[in-house]
């Protein structure tokens, strides 16, 4: 199996993992969440991670996002060594380079839509105006609402706006449509695809939904903590073309 280097929009690899393993100790038993994963992700790529529940997708994404450290192996983002970085370095890495979108949106309930975005832009070096980021996700008219006043899909779009407003180098999404209905999920995916195309942000999306895979440059399928297959899409569908 080949890495799809030829298919990547740019040939510069941003993420590199070699022999990446993660073991969780649960009392007496060791759970092997990742078993010696090798991978490479290139700048501007749109990657979809597929796989059954418990196959290690979140663990892999968390390590790439600097939220968790591997038990052994190499994990690098450009010249940042993610495997040996300490807590402070990982925090800086997340702060400067990574945007996250989660299944449960993770908005701060006591802050308005605009303030949730401000939260991130205030500490970014070259952020968008929160209003611009919210315009991108089509929520410019809901700036002063609190999360509880929005629907799930709207909340997730706020989360996307929050993630992209600082112009991150990578956007990591863990089941961003998992809690959404079909129509709304599509809307959110469109936004993510737009960001990838317009801003050139490298995107990794975890999903259970194989249909979404059509949007990706490459689709990695995980099983049992290892990469079972990588499929290169010759042509990326737009989210509106997807059927699921």
């Amino acid at each position, binding site marked *: 199996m080949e890495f799809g280097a030829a298919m990547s929009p740019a040939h510069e690899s941003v993420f590199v993992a070699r022999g990446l393993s993660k073991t969780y100790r649960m009392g007496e038993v060791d759970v092997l969440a990742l078993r010696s994963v090798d991978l490479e992700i290139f700048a501007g790529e749109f990657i979809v991670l597929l796989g059954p529940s418990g196959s290690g997708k*979140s663990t892999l994404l*968390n390590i790439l*996002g600097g*939220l*968790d450290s591997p038990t052994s192996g190499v994990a690098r983002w450009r010249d940042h060594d993610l495997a040996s970085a300490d*807590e*402070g370095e990982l*925090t*800086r890495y*997340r*702060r*400067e380079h*990574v945007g*996250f979108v*989660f*299944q*449960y949106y*993770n908005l*701060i*309930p*006591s*802050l308005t839509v605009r*303030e949730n975005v*401000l*939260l*991130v832009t*205030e*500490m970014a070096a070259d952020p968008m105006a929160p209003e611009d980021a919210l315009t991108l996700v089509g929520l410019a008219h809901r700036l002063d609402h*609190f*999360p*509880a006043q929005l629907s799930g899909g709207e909340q997730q779009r706020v989360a996307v706006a*929050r993630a992209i407003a600082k112009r991150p180098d990578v956007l990591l999404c*863990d089941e961003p449509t998992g809690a959404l209905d079909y129509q709304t999920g599509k809307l959110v995916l469109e936004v993510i695809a737009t960001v990838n195309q317009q801003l050139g942000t490298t995107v990794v999306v975890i999903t259970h939904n194989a249909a979404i895979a059509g949007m990706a440059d490459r689709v990695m399928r995980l099983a049992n903590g290892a990469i079972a297959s990588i499929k290169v899409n010759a042509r990326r569908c737009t989210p509106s073309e997807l059927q699921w």
Partner: protein
Amino acid sequence: MVSALDRKLRRDLAHMRGQVMTIALVVACGIASFVASLSTYESLRLSQSDYYAEGRFADAFVTVERAPRALAARLAEVGGVATVETRLIRDVTLDLPGVGMPVIARLVSYDGGDRPGLNRLHLRRGRLIDPDRPDEVVVSEAFAAAQRLGPGDGVPAIINGRRDVLRIVGVALSPEFIFAVRGGEPLPDDRRFGVLWMNRHGLEAAFNMEGAFNDALFTLSPDASRPAVYAEIDRLLEPYGGRGAYGRDQQMSHRFLSDELREQEIMATTIPPVFLAVAAVLVNIVLGRIVATQREQIATLKAIGYDNAPIVVHYLKMAIVIVGIGSAVGIVLGIALGRMMTGSYTQFFRLPLLAYRVPLWVPLLAVAVSLAAAAAGAAAAVRRVAALAPAEAMRPPAPRVHRRAPIERVWPIRMLPVRLLMTLRLLLDRPLRTATTIGAVALSIPIIVLGLFWNDALDYMIETQFFAAERADVVVAFSDPTNDRVRYELSRLPGVYDVETMRAVSVRLRAGHRSYRTAILGTEDGARLRRLLDAAGRVVAPPPDGMMLTDRLAERLGIAVGDVVLVEVLEGSRRTREIAVTGLVDDMIGLSAYMNIGALNRFLGEGAVASAAALAVDRDGEAAMLARLREMPRVATVTVRREAVETFLATIATIVLVFSAILCAFAAAIAIGVVYNNARIALAERSWDLATLRVLGFTRREVSAILLGGLVVELALAVPLGWWLSFQVVDALLRVLHTEMFEIPPVISMRTCVAAAAITVLAAAVSALIVRRRIDRLDLVSVLKARE
């Protein structure tokens, strides 16, 4: 078989052990202070009444100049009098070797023997006096301890101008001298004043008082009308120089002891119940909040089919375990502290039967109150959650209808960095809870202040009473009124640079049906050494034709400035006259009346005489001057102010120190209990948000600042509120504590305020550090999964 809920209980308690311990600690402190002080007070009170009964403490007292012993039979016939006992009492100067200061002994005749008399001695060491040995004496314990005297020691005394050596055969306590206070002195001073009981015949012979008495004790029948009895006794003794009969309420030692007991009673019945109530309220709030954080769990239990009852029982068990731990610790601690306090009062009160007792109702009530408060807090929280439909309750925390706080309309805090905004919304979201927290933290400040302010008040008392009002270094009292020319003799003594003479005379003041026995002190015009101060601290002087009273005396007599008082002189000429009260004096100790010395002497029909003199003395000349004073024939007693102040401080310091140390520890425990639990609960409620922020790239420090920033704001508001509360509490306490003999001024120093705030802030900081460690350990990955 342990039920699943009980297992959950055990794990929850283990998991929350920090919170369990701190809440239990608050409960323990409330219970401990309640048990300790109430048991101490009960022990003291019972000891007093037991001792009075055992020692057959007299009901009434009278002093005369010299009356024939045969009069005793006439006194016994007075209606209402049950028993009479006559005595001979004389104050003499002791010539103790190696003691640089003047020491006064009160010689009291004591029959003892087989006839069970009144005011019986309680022998602590040695034996009673042998009726055939005129030189044997029994010494009062406090004095013996202060002067290191004991059986076998000889005490040289100047008796009627002759130096005699008295032999100590025993050390004893007397219900009459639990506090040995010399007339005219504000406080007991055991180093300079003691009681010696000796053979009556020896005393009669030494003072040429054969067949006579100058003091009598009475017990009254229960139905006796005291004013009538006193009037009849006074009538019988009038020809013999009777000074007026009086009851226990005006007996010096009893008055001091009852004042002390009353203070103890007030302390025991005000501070600890407040403490217990504070602890109960805190436990109620904290437990309620803890239960509220388990909202989703409760909802889930309901969703899977549990009734409300077992859920409520589950959380009640939690309350019982926490209060149970706190009660056990609190009762053990309270008994240990009570024992210790009772022990330290033994030193102070010298009550022989001081046994430590804990009335059963005290710990029972304390535990019941704590338990009820905790249970109510837990149950109310469960009920609030149970009232919701499970589906609704399972959704993330409740009334989070986030909106802008009203203040945001006025003041656009939107302009602030969002992190600050989060902190502020954290506080403003639940204004009631924030206010309760601020109030609860603020409560720890008055508790510390209650422990510390005594020193400030005492400093202030000493500052005004001893250094602004009674400014003499040495006060000399003469055995009889002496020609005022004595001032020239005194001013020639070494080291003396100022002399002022005074005239004190025993009187009974009457206003309507109220009366009070005290002394009128005549002071010089423009007095420098014995000044009178009014409530505003201004120096005032009695006018030529009027009299001034201690404000508390005016209150006791029920009169105001401008009213007249009937003055009955109880010595010499025994004149009676109405005198107008022209002003009040703000004495903090004692109840006195003041006149101009010239006016007083004219009223008494005496020439220019003095009964005492105040001296200003150089420290260097003091020793030589005291030696010369002792040789002057008319000098009865000499008081050195500095030493009196030191003794006063030394006795009070030990008690105050123990008391304040305990209160400080309790207050710190309360502050920790409140702040720690508050922060833990806030953390539990916000950990999801905070972990999200960490994921977004916020550092541990920034995230901690958001949560703990709220604590800082709460503290910043709690401290001034606590200061304000302190002034209110101290003021209210002193209002009830105000006794006739003492008035403790409501003075709180800056140092005390700062110390109270510092202890609270420190307790908060410790709690914050513990919580901060938890924030650092937040599990970031878990927030990406579903919300718990």
